[in-house]
């Protein structure tokens, strides 16, 4: 049990240590004052933007007052803060009971307005959860270090288990289309998830291994997509010819963009990559004679079965039909299943590459660069070439993913390659824990899978996405599964726990 301290109005100063000499008990005045201050801030935040809404009227812009929502949020913040303050002072059990009563009343009894019900249920629920955790663990608040240690243990377990989980997951992914579960929607979601997993793994090479923060990764995705679309459009090349070409072009653009900026460090590098990403998007929008501008390119040819067979019912001249070739009943699902396996294979190639390269001099140099730039230079590692290699290889994988995206959608436009896509891919890498391959998968399921499952809440999806990014970072700043054993150890390796997790 932590003891109350005089610093209640600044809970962030409240160190989780024991303060001898201060007895138990609740400092009501300070707690209520603190909650009141929080409610006042909530008032200032909500009055202009929540309480007053602009509405379109025939005469122009009008305004509408929503006082009940302002009052609701103030009440929510006040009691929420009060509850948290009391939990911190060892009153978890009464708070738990009260919060549960609130939530129950909100659920069962009739309420004059919906807003009141929402306040009771939501506020009561969250506080009850928090209080229950405190009651269960017997501690008011884990310190950041404790929490980190605990999560590190879980992460280490997952890392070790990934030796078994990995193959199981791959087998599961491979047999998924054959199970009766697989319908059109599930496969589409699977393809989407695998695309982001592949992009995450690709970006992980730059961010996780080489330690370069790239905010413009989507540019290479765009280069790959447009390479295929334009080559197919102007020269009629097939997907299988274009796939390596798209990768090559993306890698070239990676070298081209990377060469001037790799001297920069840290945040500057991030901003310049963001700038490059935007430049590529603006070029795609403005060079409409060539790229179709904002309208994009439609009618991008679908992939054939390795150039042998086509997936349509009536294939073009000189092509066999896939279902006839294998003596199957025609089904539009065949193409989807094929696309699914294609992206699975591409993603696994990226994963295998990363796993292997970490054992090669190149990968070791990347990891060393990430840990200490200057030490690397002193050891005679050519920093520019190493970083350029990371940039180009990641760009190549981005290009592969891009041309897959183009052939799957059949339509691309610059809309698909905005900064928000870069942010999502980067979020996947960082939330999963930089450099952790299994972390990317977990984060993709969280970041892409969860919103996909709640599609009907379309408007609130991105709101929750942004808030989720903040919350995960606050909860676990190094990413969910950030634990990494050093790839090599001195003297054949003491236990990883003794050397500690690499930062």
């Amino acid at each position: 049990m932590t003891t109350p301290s005089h610093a209640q109005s600044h809970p962030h100063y409240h160190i989780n240590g024991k303060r001898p000499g201060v007895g138990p008990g609740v400092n009501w005045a300070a707690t209520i004052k603190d909650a009141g201050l929080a409610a006042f801030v909530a008032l200032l935040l909500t009055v202009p933007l929540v309480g007053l809404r602009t509405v379109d009227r025939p005469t122009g812009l009008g305004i509408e007052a929503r006082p009940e929502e302002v009052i609701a949020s103030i009440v929510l913040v006040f009691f929420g803060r009060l509850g948290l303050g009391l939990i911190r002072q060892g009153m978890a059990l009464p708070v738990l009971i009260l919060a549960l009563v609130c939530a129950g009343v909100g659920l069962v009894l009739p309420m004059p307005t919906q807003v009141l019900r929402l306040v009771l249920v939501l506020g009561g629920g969250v506080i009850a959860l928090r209080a229950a955790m405190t009651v269960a663990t017997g501690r008011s608040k884990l310190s950041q270090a404790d929490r980190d240690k605990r999560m590190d243990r879980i992460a280490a377990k997952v890392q070790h288990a990934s030796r078994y989980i990995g193959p199981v997951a791959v087998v599961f992914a491979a047999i998924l289309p054959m199970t009766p579960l697989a319908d059109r929607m599930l496969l589409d979601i699977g393809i989407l998830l695998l695309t982001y997993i592949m992009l995450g793994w690709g970006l992980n090479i730059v961010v996780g291994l080489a330690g370069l923060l790239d905010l413009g990764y989507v540019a290479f995705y765009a280069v790959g997509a447009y390479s295929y679309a334009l080559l197919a459009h102007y020269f009629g090349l097939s997907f299988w010819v274009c796939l390596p070409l798209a990768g090559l072009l993306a890698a070239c653009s990676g070298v081209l963009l990377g060469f001037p900026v790799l001297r920069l460090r840290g945040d500057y590098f991030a901003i310049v990559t963001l700038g490059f990403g935007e430049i590529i998007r603006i070029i795609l929008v403005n060079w409409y004679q060539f790229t179709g501008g904002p309208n994009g390119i439609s009618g991008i040819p679908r992939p054939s079965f390795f150039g042998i067979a086509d997936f349509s019912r009536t294939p073009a001249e000189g092509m066999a039909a896939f279902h006839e070739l294998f003596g199957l009943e025609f089904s539009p699902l065949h193409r989807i299943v094929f696309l699914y396996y294609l992206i699975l294979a591409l993603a696994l190639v990226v994963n295998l590459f990363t796993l292997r390269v970490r054992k090669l001099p190149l990968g070791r140099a990347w990891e060393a660069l990430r840990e200490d730039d200057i030490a690397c230079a002193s050891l005679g590692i050519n920093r520019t070439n190493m970083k350029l290699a990371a940039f180009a290889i990641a760009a190549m994988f981005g290009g592969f993913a891009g041309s897959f995206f183009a052939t799957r959608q059949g339509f691309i436009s610059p809309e698909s390659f905005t900064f928000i896509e870069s942010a999502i891919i980067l979020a996947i890498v960082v939330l999963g824990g930089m450099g952790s391959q299994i972390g990317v998968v977990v984060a993709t399921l969280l970041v892409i899978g969860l919103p996909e499952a709640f599609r009907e809440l379309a408007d609130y999806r991105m709101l929750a996405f942004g808030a989720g990014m903040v919350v995960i970072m606050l909860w676990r700043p190094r990413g969910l599964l950030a634990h990494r054993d050093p790839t090599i150890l001195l003297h054949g390796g003491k236990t990883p726990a003794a050397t500690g997790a690499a930062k």
Partner: protein
Amino acid sequence: MDYFIQQLINGLSLGAIYGLIAIGYTMVYGIIGMINFAHGEIYMIGSFVALITFLAIGALGITWVPLALLIMLLASMLFTSVYGWTVERIAYRPLRSSPRLAPLISAIGMSIFLQNYIQILQGARSKPLQPILPGNLTLMDGAVSVSYVRLATIIITLVLMIGFTTLINRTSLGRAQRACEQDKKMAGLLGVNVDRVISLTFVMGAALAAVAGMMVLLIYGVIDFYIGFLAGVKSFTAAVLGGVGSLPGAMLGGVVIGLIEAFWSGYVGSEWKDVATFSILVLVLIFRPTGLLGRPEIEKV
């Protein structure tokens, strides 16, 4: 020549707006070394608060324009700074001792959150507003016309800059701020409340961004929830161009970016103006990473 002067004035007023936003970036970067990615969104919120305040006081029956403008200015500065404060308190302060990437990701998340927050609350459609301050000042026998709004933007920015420079150079808050910028730990040991100084830095940055937001609303007469991103990136460019951490640099960078944009639109065409801005950013970072007025950073092992 007339056209040149016209573009010059357009560029100056645009640059003033970028400069006001850039100060927020540069101060935050100077003091806690992070790119406050949500700052563009703060500017967007300032713009929305100004719009809502105008509509609200219109509904209350206040029609005298100077008073209306003053209330708009004060309200948007006040409410937006509360947003700036809250963003720092919730999303950045707990991450102050974390690895460098964590606050950046948190900031990107905050930026996405705020954008969608405004979109849900106020609607996705762009918000038009009738001109509040119509009229032009004609110069050179009518060849050049400067709208009062643009003139007001430049004047208000100048006044704010003078006040702000005084605040940083003369007051004890400014001294504490500069001390924290140099060495937070030492400043803390000498009795400076570092948390409070950092909070106030965010509050000041947000207040200046709110002024910029209101000016954009007055000049262009239309805003939407998405204006923050591009303005944010360009203002960051301005901050980098001027030299991150330097206040006059931020203003200078803003003016340079504004002028480039205005002249590029005027003489080359407006489609490629964003490419011009980003190319400047890239070129400056490659050839002069410390910016125009920045101090070189010494690499220590």
